[in-house]
C-alpha cells in the first residue's frame, strides 16, 4: 500500500498494473484517474494550482484508506495525489484498489474518491481567462459522501 503526495506527474497505467504485480489472489483491480480539464464551470481553464496541508494530507488519506479496508476485503490500495501547478490534460489523482472480488474493488475505489473529495485537505485555484479563482466545493460531493455513512 502506498499513499503519495507529489508535485511530479505520473503514469496512471503503470500504477494500475502495479496493483496486480504477481499477486495471484487478485481477481479484480479498479483504478480511478482524475484529470485537469480545459474547461470548468463555464470558463476556460489554463491550469490550476493545487494547495494542500503538508503533514495532515497523508494522515487524512491514510485514515480514508484504513476505513475502506475495514469495510471491504482489499489486497492492495494505492493513492497518489499531486500538488503544485497542473495544466489541462495532466493527471491529478490516482486511486487504485485490488481485491479477490469485483464489487469490493469498485465500491472501495468509489468510497475512497468520495471521501478524498470532501475530507482530504486539498484546494484548487484555477487560472481562467478572467483571472484566478478558487474552486468552490460542490453540494453533489457532500451528497456522494452521505451514501457511505452508516
Amino acid at each position, binding site marked *: 500500500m502506498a499513499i503519495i503526495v507529489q508535485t511530479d506527474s505520473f503514469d496512471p497505467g503503470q500504477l494500475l498494473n502495479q496493483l496486480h504485480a504477481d499477486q495471484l489472489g487478485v481477481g479484480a483491480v479498479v483504478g480511478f484517474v482524475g484529470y485537469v480539464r480545459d474547461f470548468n464551470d463555464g470558463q476556460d481553464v489554463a491550469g490550476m494550482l493545487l494547495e494542500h496541508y503538508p*503533514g495532515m494530507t497523508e494522515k487524512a488519506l491514510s485514515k480514508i484508506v484504513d476505513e475502506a479496508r475495514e469495510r471491504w476485503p482489499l489486497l492492495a490500495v494505492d493513492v497518489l495525489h499531486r500538488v503544485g501547478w497542473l495544466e489541462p490534460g495532466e493527471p491529478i489523482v490516482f486511486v487504485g484498489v485490488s481485491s479477490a472480488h469485483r464489487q469490493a474493488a469498485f465500491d472501495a475505489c468509489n468510497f475512497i474518491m468520495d471521501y478524498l473529495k470532501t475530507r482530504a485537505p486539498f*484546494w484548487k485555484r484555477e487560472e481562467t481567462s478572467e483571472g484566478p479563482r478558487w474552486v468552490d466545493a460542490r453540494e453533489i460531493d457532500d451528497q456522494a459522501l452521505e451514501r457511505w455513512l452508516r
Partner: protein
Amino acid sequence: MLTINYFARYREALGCEQEQLPWSSALQTVNDLREHLLTRGDAWQILAEPKVMCARNQDMCQLDSPLADGDEIAFFPPVTGG
C-alpha cells in the same frame, strides 16, 4: 502556545499562512479561538462562514472540539481536491 494555520482562500484573504498565539484558559474550544480571531476586524469575518472547516493536530474536527496548550489548529474552506 497555539499554532494556527490558514489555507487557500482564507490564507489569501487574511494575508497570513501561520501564526502563533499564547494559549489561555479562555480558549476552551476551537470555536472560542475562532471567536477571538473574529474580534480582529473585517478581514477576519471570513472565519464566520457557515462552512468553515477546521483541524486540530492535523485531524479534521468540529468547532466544539476542546483546545489544549501546544495544539496545532487550522482553519480552511471546504476542500476541493481529487
